[in-house]
């Protein structure tokens, strides 16, 4: 599997570290009755079979945080963007 870093170009996956699902939203409230939201955020994972958006860190390269649109069944990569752009646009 090769990932096309927007800064470094196409690089082998061992240069990167995967941090999992990029679509998780951190709850903003500390109220006790938002426990369930925190529980979902901290522990529950969609664990998608198919296309998902993931955080990857180019740890062995430019060290930027990326979001990769990848299929977990075929390893096909549909797109890569920076985490900043992903948060601004909400898509890869």
């Amino acid at each position: 599997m090769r990932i096309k870093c927007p800064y470094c170009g196409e690089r082998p996956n061992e240069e990167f570290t995967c941090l999992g699902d990029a679509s998780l939203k951190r709850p903003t409230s500390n109220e006790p009755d938002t426990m369930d939201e925190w529980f979902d955020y901290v522990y529950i994972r969609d664990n998608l079979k198919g296309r998902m958006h993931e955080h990857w860190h180019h740890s062995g390269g430019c060290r930027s945080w990326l979001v990769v649109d990848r299929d977990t069944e075929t390893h096909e990569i549909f797109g890569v963007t920076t985490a900043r752009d992903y948060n601004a646009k909400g898509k890869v």
Partner: protein
Amino acid sequence: MNRYSIFSLARNAVNYHKDWEKAWRSPDPRPTYDAVIVGAGGHGLATAYYLAKEHRMTNIAVLEKGWLGGGNTGRNTTIIRSNYLQDESIAIYELARSLYEDLSQELNYNTMFSPRGVMMMCQTEHELRAFKRTAHANRLAGLDCRMIDRAEVKRLCPIINDSPRARYPILGAYYQPRGGTGRHDAVAWGYARGADDLGVDIIQNCEVTGITREGDTVTGVQTSKGYIKTNKIAVVAAGNTSAIVEMAGVGLPVESVCLQALVSEPIKPVIDCVVMANTVHGYMSQSDKGELVIGGGADGYNNYSQRGAFTSLEHTVTALVETFPIISRLRMMRIWGGIVDMTGDRSPIISMTDVKGLYVNCGWGTGGFKSIPGSGFVFADTIANDRPHPIAEPFGLNRFLEGRLIDESVAAAVAH
């Protein structure tokens, strides 16, 4: 069921082994069952066997999308041990290990349990301290395990590189003499034959594609062989469990990743124990055929494809060549991968759910072969009585919300 024995072997030899009866039937699904188990791996089959044997529930089915034992149960490196750190873990893994001791007699099927001893290497000061802590915990729990020094490691495993100048020198090891290996396929086949004999329908090539509910109660499963009505559904599908319970609207704290293993060409006996080296991410034992069975770390990203990254293998092999220099010229014959279900605390989930009649048993990750008999035993009890068995109770899904994690990520830093 025809019992297997020296006499049946001799009798069948006379007929050139043409008349052996099938070890299990291949029935069509009935329209209704008292319980349906999804996944015919070791855990699903053991659950079915104990449901039928201990709880007299015989109108049950095990549904398997492929062939029985074709998941992780047929892909693992068969290390069996029980020297985990936390009391809850010790209870279930030691129950399983002790059931393995006479499983062949129980099932009348040779599961080839071989308590050849498992050594977990200490190659850094940190690791030495961590294993001493585990050793104390295990001693309090009454397990037969002990720390051994470098000389004894070398005596038990002469091919190990014990040079003090090694990149990661051997400082000692944590040793469980009654740990060892078993025959993975035989465990699945033995439980399948035993369950079938008690009346359980094992239905292969039958994929579960949907779960129906009425309110908060399950009513049946949609499968590739039609609809089956049931009020109890037990999902035991390792890396695919998330996708199945999602059909009933249940989310799990699990992620699926690939774990690989490989075997060498067969050679004369060189190692008669199991060696695990957590710091360098590799472990090895030798099969009865003479192949070295090698495993390492899991890949670091989600995967459902049963094919892993080459870099993980390279990493494992590099470490093992350093630890066992004589294997450097061996050719590797086969590699394969399995999709393992990882939880955050590296402990399994054996649980009821918010949906009535839906039970899950998963999260065994990289280390659930060793637990098959114990897990099946307590899960069957949980399903039959609709409340958690005392040994299963700490492994409930609610432990995450309650912050009661059963942290085994130190004790099980490497896959095994």
